[in-house]
């Protein structure tokens, strides 16, 4: 099934799509990778709103002339953020996590709260084309890839629902089958 979702996302929005469905996203996405996650967990106040937000595991390549322009903006490996994710979801009202490759041990933390959406890895050229505006940048002191970039996007995708809000994890299913198969080789 295919869905188009618009940020800010409500619980009803993210309950509908099931693992394996295709989602396109309109609205705002915020990048956050390793160091931004650490700062989000240690901060008491943050300069942007994460309620109903879609965060994007991404370290973009940007260029500044008069204003910031995205050059290549695509997903990074989400597994690195796995450990920090349950606490992050507890602390902020994040409704969607966009990344690639899946995450470990987050199914319970996502349950009825958030969905994990996979952008095709390495596809920064088309992803960048789906960014319509660079709205803001925060925490640039962390460096270009680690800063929090706020992008306005249109028809951002195809995003595959990798882990849904009902406890289904496509990656875990694939891994289980691979573990069975390797025994027979």
């Amino acid at each position: 099934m295919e869905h188009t979702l618009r940020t800010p996302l409500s619980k009803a929005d993210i309950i509908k799509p099931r693992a394996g469905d295709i989602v396109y996203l309109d609205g705002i996405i915020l990048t956050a990778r390793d160091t931004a996650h650490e700062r989000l967990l240690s901060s008491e106040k943050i300069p942007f709103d994460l309620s109903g937000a879609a965060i994007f595991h991404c370290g973009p390549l940007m260029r500044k002339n008069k204003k910031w322009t995205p050059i290549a903006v695509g997903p990074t490996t989400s597994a690195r953020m796995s450990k920090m994710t349950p606490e992050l979801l507890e602390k902020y009202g994040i409704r969607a996590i966009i990344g690639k490759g899946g995450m470990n041990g987050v199914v319970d933390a996502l349950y009825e709260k958030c969905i994990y959406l996979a952008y095709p890895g390495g596809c920064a050229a088309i992803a960048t084309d789906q960014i319509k505006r660079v709205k803001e940048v925060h925490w640039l002191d962390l460096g270009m890839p680690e800063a929090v970039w706020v992008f306005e996007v249109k028809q951002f995708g195809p995003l595959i629902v990798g882990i849904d809000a009902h406890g289904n994890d496509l990656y875990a299913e694939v891994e289980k089958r691979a573990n069975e198969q390797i025994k027979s080789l």
Partner: protein
Amino acid sequence: MSDVIVENQVIKAVIQVLRQAETELPGDVLSALKSVRDRESNPIARTQLSAIIKNADFAKENVIPMCQDTGVPVFFVDVGREAMINFDLEEAIRKGVARATEEIPLRPNAVHPLTRENSGNVGVGFPDVNFDFVPGKNIKITVMPKGGGAENMSVLRMFTPSEVDDVKHFIIETVKNAGGKPCPPIIVGVGIGGTFDKSARLAKKAALRRLDVPSDDLEQELLEEINSLGIGPMGLGGDTTALKVNIEYAHCHVASLPVAINIQCWAARRASVTLEG
């Protein structure tokens, strides 16, 4: 009589090969991706392969990097034994990388390993530059920008001679454990033999090999077994986990059996240029 190759030629050549590699997926890789998309039976996998092909076409058309991880610039330089230069070749390559970072542009990817302080794309031992001496008077510069996601899934293990039969399983298991993290469909570069460090270098060279070079029996058998795992493009399931398995060998110590696996993502970027001496 050879012509002298000057520093500026090398700097320009480095920018040219980096631009080509970052923006234009090699034809043999694109053909392989199209052929697996046409054969793929899993509908989710087909969406991933179609997006990858569309992305590669879009990057080439607009001369922009295909992936935001513009990688570690790994250079293989074939220096003709009769080539004449009067400058520091490695320093010229470093200058080319610094300029390419501004001009293409490339993401600043070099950090100190412990402090994580970012130094752009030039640092201690960064870019990675390898020299080989070859017959002739030319200098051939090849670049392989290597993304971090796939590099992180690479593994090296020192086997003992009695464990020869375990090598195949080790290769398949490494790919299984990597799952969707290295951006499959991947190229599996394997180095068997040599010393600890040489096996890793062989694995990297194996990952650089063109996909239209025919596989031997062991490579083909490994490819089929890897694809039977069903990990699929991006780890979302499907028939295509690897595009190819390439193995390079070297003789090793009588007590040793090093095996290194260097995984390359679908964005198997590479480009070469020859400077004529």
